[in-house]
């Protein structure tokens, strides 16, 4: 029997048992669609999160007060006030951390801002003009404050889009004064709407020089976070180690396990987040695989029923000269064709759905969500469905080929 006729025979077999074929394909389609959807959405989420993190710049190193707990039993004290101005002085000393090019102490607080009769609860973010470059933000109008504003503790603010809308309604906020804690701050710039997709929600933020924030708003003598930038990606680990040593010395700490601060690089954050999201994705793939396995058992059932129902046909084919091998190939190919068709339909359906979801997320929720065609899911899907066809179709096909022609012909 030629390959061409093997295919023709198998296709005819599937076509003459149309509804059964469609039901079988459906089982596989659902499994593969689930896998494709999960892998695609997982990759999309991973890209989104990593994009956010890497958007901060991979040469960025953050210093956080206290220890990021590595285990639940590690009861570390939250040294929330451990980062002091003397630390900044120590870090700014080129001899201590030669690879550091810039440094920005930040303070974070929350307060209400008012203009005329309007009040709005805002996040106060104290920083320097480095904010603009580190977070890649450009005002839609006005100019970001500069280093001289920081040095002179100017009462100037950059406000987020939501703050501008709530306080000023349709008025132009530029050069108007808003009131926080009874003090007037002049609006020097307004940020464009960023949407809810970023790690930092700049829309409801009021950004001012950290010196101003510490003196007039939060009243604190410590920093919530120090953000630094190394001269390049490559020297980040060296710079991070130098920062650690410098701060330990500045804080008089000799045992590194007792550090009252944590040095966090974007790379380590990205790695951690990447590990978490991919673990989640593979967990969901495992769940989807169970669906696929159930589909496979369904195929075996249907193929066994098919073999029983078509026993007379098998007997006839054998009587007309079909060899065991011909029958085996026919039924095996039918099973593999069913699962492969199911696989292809599932891949198209799954990636189509993932595309629609990606489109909806980025379009209606203003999330910066990129559609990812899940190649790994597609390859996995096709392979798994073909293997399911071979394995779960193999047993019934063997049963079919082993039948003696006369037993098969006599079968009622």
């Amino acid at each position: 029997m030629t390959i061409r006729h093997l295919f023709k025979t198998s296709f005819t077999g599937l076509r003459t048992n149309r509804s059964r074929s469609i039901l079988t394909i459906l089982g596989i389609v659902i499994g593969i669609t689930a896998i494709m959807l999960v892998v695609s959405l997982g990759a999309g989420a991973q890209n989104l999160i990593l994009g956010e993190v890497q958007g901060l710049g991979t040469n960025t190193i953050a210093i956080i007060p206290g220890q990021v707990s590595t285990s639940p039993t590690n009861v570390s004290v939250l040294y929330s006030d451990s980062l002091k101005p003397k630390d900044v002085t120590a870090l700014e000393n080129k001899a201590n951390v030669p690879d550091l090019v810039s440094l920005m102490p930040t303070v974070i607080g929350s307060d209400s801002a008012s203009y005329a009769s309007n009040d709005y609860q805002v996040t106060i973010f104290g920083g320097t003009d480095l904010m603009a470059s580190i977070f890649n933000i450009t005002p839609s109008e006005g100019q970001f404050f500069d280093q001289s504003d920081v040095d002179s503790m100017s009462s100037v603010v950059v406000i987020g889009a939501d703050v501008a809308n709530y306080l000023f309604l349709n008025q132009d906020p530029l050069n108007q004064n808003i009131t926080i804690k009874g003090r007037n701050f002049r609006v020097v710039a307004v940020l464009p709407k960023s949407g809810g997709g970023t790690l930092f929600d700049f829309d409801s933020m009021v950004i001012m020089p950290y010196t101003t924030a510490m003196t007039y708003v939060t009243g604190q003598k410590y920093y919530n976070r120090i953000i630094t930038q190394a001269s390049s990606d490559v020297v980040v680990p060296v710079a991070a180690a130098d920062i650690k040593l410098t701060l330990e010395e500045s804080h008089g700490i000799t045992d590194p396990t007792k550090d009252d601060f944590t040095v966090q690089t974007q790379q380590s954050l990205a790695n951690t987040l990447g590990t978490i999201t991919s673990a989640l994705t593979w967990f969901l793939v495992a769940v989807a695989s169970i669906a696929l396995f159930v589909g496979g058992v369904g195929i075996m059932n249907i193929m066994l029923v098919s073999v029983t129902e078509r026993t007379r046909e098998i007997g006839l084919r054998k009587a007309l000269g079909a060899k065991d091998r011909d029958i085996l190939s026919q039924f095996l190919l039918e099973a593999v064709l069913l699962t492969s068709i199911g696989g292809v339909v599932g891949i198209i359906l799954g990636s189509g759905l993932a595309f629609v979801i990606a489109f909806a997320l980025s379009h209606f929720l203003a999330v910066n969500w990129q559609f990812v065609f899940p190649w790994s899911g597609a390859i996995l899907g096709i392979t798994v469905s073909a293997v399911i066809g071979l394995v779960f179709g193999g047993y019934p096909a063997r049963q079919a080929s082993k039948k003696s022609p006369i037993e098969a012909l006599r079968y009622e």
Partner: protein
Amino acid sequence: MAENIIEVKNLKKSYHDGVEATIALAGVSFDVRKGEFMAIMGPSGSGKSTLLHLLGLLDTPTSGTYHFDGKNITSYDGNELAYLRNQKLGFVFQAFNLLARTSVLENVKLPLVYSDNIPEREWDERATRAIEAVGLSNRLNHDQSELSGGERQRVAIARALVTDPDVIFADEPTGNLDSKSGKNIMSILQRLNMKEGKTIVLITHETATAEHSERIIRLMDGEIESDTKVKNRLSADSEYVK
């Protein structure tokens, strides 16, 4: 005397279902000449179907020898038997056994799909010729379900003819047909026997049908009861031949 195409000696077949063995064929010996038209008769359970299945290589005997065309095929394996069934034997069944939802032409071509030596370009021509031989040229592309019982059996005969076999086994070919269609089938079988020299082994329980053949073997309880020549052979076209 012409050469024998079939020679069986002491052919036995028994079935074991758990504890008891049922003897279907208790040991039969006979020859079939090349070009002979033979009928096997007997009541239900006499072993006539079992014998046809053994002769048609659809089943293997428990003991005894079977020479087909001079070769001892008792020890042949599955593939060799499949080859012989495909090339040397043709089958016509009582229940027609055509493929469902398949055209007349495709049904007739089915044995060619399993033949390794007939090139594909000859398939259509061969199938068309076989369909012509049973007078169904106008039904070539009809689905088999659109055909009457008699026509379906003629398709089955065309399918049996398509590989140009030496022997045609017909298992109660008129059993499911009215007398007119049955006569038509017998006429075709007689013509194939006389004009094309095909050896035909027919199973029937109707004496009138059996008398279209040259020779009748009667079975009873798995043994040959009688083996006689038909004196007044019926012709499906006119009353008598010769």
